[in-house]
């Protein structure tokens, strides 16, 4: 029992939680912005996969991790722009477009991977990975230094992007308009705001963030690409957005919490504690449903989420 409790605040568990949370946070922030513009993008899983591949192949072939990140992000943006064309211009049902995009994206990434790396019985190709970016001085603080200040630079970037994003959404003209588009595209249209353009931008940003998540999985964590690299993280990011009620602070908390649960169950196993870990893994999903019910009175769900906007129709 003491193991169960001790694992709760274990330094390694916390550091691991932050690491696991990083791609979730990145993808969730991107999805939140996309949804704020009224687009429900279920294609994050595919976007992450495509980006992980884009990062990996360039990092490996061009031998530059930074170029790798850049191209991963580029790939993510490209796929998201395809989504934008489908849902914002052609106005295909968003749910289906997202599902189709997953199929297409994952297939495309794997197809290209095989084109670049035919497997004939050798080892798995592996690229370099970024080293942890330990922040001088701060990383020497006991416990906190190890948990918080000895992570990847992208982790810091993800966390720092929260206030930046908050400021952008709440204190700039652009953010104001973006939020308006998700709530009342007709009003924005009448105000001269290019609704379609905003949705393209929002999706591109979502692609950028999912792209970073993909890059994190390949060129930060493992230096590997494989077809199941996203492993459901796109879906969990989606859950986190709802769990976080479309609020940046709560999304950050949600991502950390979901990452924490995963790290915790691994730690319990490592301690030899017998728990049906499936139940711990299911907890985030159950909690997301619970959050939906609890938040219903003060929901910040964009009023026009998932509904295609047609001018002249109401």
């Amino acid at each position, binding site marked *: 029992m003491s193991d169960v409790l001790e694992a709760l605040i274990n330094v390694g568990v916390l550091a691991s939680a932050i690491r696991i949370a990083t791609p979730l946070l990145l993808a969730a922030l991107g999805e939140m912005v996309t949804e704020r513009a009224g687009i429900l993008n279920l294609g994050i899983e595919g976007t992450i996969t495509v980006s992980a591949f884009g990062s990996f192949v360039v990092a490996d072939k061009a031998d530059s991790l930074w170029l790798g990140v850049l191209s991963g992000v580029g790939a993510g943006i490209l796929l998201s722009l395809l989504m934008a064309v489908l849902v914002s211009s052609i106005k295909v049902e968003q749910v289906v477009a997202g599902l189709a995009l997953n199929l297409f994206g994952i297939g495309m990434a794997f197809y290209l991977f095989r084109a670049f790396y035919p497997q004939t019985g050798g080892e798995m190709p592996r690229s370099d990975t970024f080293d942890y970016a330990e922040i001088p001085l701060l990383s020497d603080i006991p416990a906190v230094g190890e948990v918080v200040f000895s992570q990847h630079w992208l982790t810091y970037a993800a966390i720092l992007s929260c206030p930046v994003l908050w400021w952008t959404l709440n204190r700039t003209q*652009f953010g104001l308009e973006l939020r308006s588009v998700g*709530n009342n595209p007709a009003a924005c249209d009448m*105000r001269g*705001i290019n609704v379609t353009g905003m949705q393209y931008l929002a999706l591109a940003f979502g692609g950028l963030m999912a792209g970073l998540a993909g890059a994190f999985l390949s060129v930060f964590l493992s230096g590997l690409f494989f077809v199941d690299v996203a492993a459901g993280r796109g879906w969990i990011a989606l859950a986190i957005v709802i769990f976080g009620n479309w609020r940046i602070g709560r999304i950050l908390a949600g991502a950390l919490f979901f990452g924490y649960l995963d790290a915790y169950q691994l730690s319990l196993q490592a301690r030899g504690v017998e728990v049906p870990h499936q139940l711990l893994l299911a907890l985030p999903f159950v909690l997301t449903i619970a959050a939906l019910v609890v938040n219903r009175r003060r929901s910040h769900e964009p009023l026009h989420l998932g509904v295609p906007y047609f*001018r002249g129709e109401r």
Partner: protein
Amino acid sequence: MNGDGADSVLLRARGVTKRFPGVVANDDITLEVHRARVHCLLGENGAGKSTLADLFYGVHEPDEGAIELRGEPIHMVSPRDAIAAGIGMVRQHFELVTPMSVLENVVIGTRGEAKVDLRAARGRLGELCDLYGVEVDLDTPVGDLAVGQQQWVEILKALYLGCEVLILDEPTAVLTPEGIERLFATLRRMASEGLTIVLITHKLHEVMEISDDVTVLRRGRVVRTSLTSEVTMADLTRMMVGRDVDLAIDVVEAPRGDLVLDVSGLDVATESGRGSLKQVSLQVHEREILGIAGVSGNGQDALFDVLVGMKPADAGRILVDAKDIAELSPAGRLEIGIASVPADRIHQGLMMDFRISENLILGRQRSDRFGRRGWLNQKGIGEFADDSFAAFDIAAPSPAHVTRVLSGGNLQKIVMARELAGQPRLLVVHQPTRGLDIGATEYVRRRLVEERDQGAAILLISEDLDELLNLSSRIAVMFDGRIVGEVDRRDATVDRIGMWMAGVSGAPGEALA
């Protein structure tokens, strides 16, 4: 006063035609709007006024012809172009982001500023409010504002962008007589300061009261443009309708019968607090039409909803034939003979993608006539549709067609045919002629009277005073969720009802408890 100088023409439509599937909304329209004047576009619902306004604002593009501003043709494909050209518009249905504050709503779409300087915006907006005497809390979410105030937010939005032409589409529908007066005063002042105002309305007296110029539209065409001072209301009526009409229906009233609807002490809260009901009591008898007057947003929606079972009452009783119906669902209320015609027939009354025949049985799909043990009786449905087509003179290719293809008047006929079919005991009607042309309006009103004569008790909620004065046996007036006065039709005058509508309570004894 010299409206004729070509250089004073600010906005011009030149031979503008706009078609929608199945209709020509604007047909070769040419008109000129002069600088710093108030120009009314007058016409019935469906005459093409709103479409023309949308063309001026870049919402739609003309299929033929051109819009000109300051003598130059301007090609607008989006409201953005209109805004850039100095055109502002307040549409009939507000375009507000309800969860956001007044200030934020105003700032949306102001170009060229990356960071929202809310402080500066607040200052400028404050000046505008002071200038025109607008009182509104800038930090309240607009969803929490009264409709009248929301309209001011819309006007502020247009002014904030510094427009030269301000188009207002039916702005008075949501205002009290007092509010209208204030609006008109403000508009006159704006015009005197150089703003050009295009006001869309279907109310003659408003035209006479405020405008310098008036253009009458009928069926998408311009009938005539003239100086308001040179026409009379009778002229305008003739132009609007195309003939002399008297919508008054000769009402020979039979004595009313037993008490059918007895409402007392009804309270209904709404989430925002707007449009709630407070201690409403009213009675309707057999062979009687009780009219409910009031400016929209004063509780009429809640009253309709609570009577048909869409909203629960927080306090009070609703008796129908002395039976408490509080526990009855909408379906249960249909069963005991409560029929209803909702205000928004497209959203509340019809399934636009259903076949017409299917819409005609909506609500009675499980009745013995149209089904048995969960199965639909296709033959019964078909026969009923044929009967309805004949009885209500519905103009549609066949009952198997999708409802979407019908015109507004025919849509309302379908609703009426459906609701009147079961010989309702109580008929709750909300804005039954809104948006209908003269012919359909006449038809609907006549059917209501017929229904009354056959013994139904009718509660008629309307914002059209003429309609109420014409049809009702008694008129009650709602203000801020209360019945503030009730009067027999024979004693009713526009002034008296207008006072009540503005919230001024009548002398003791006039308002029935």
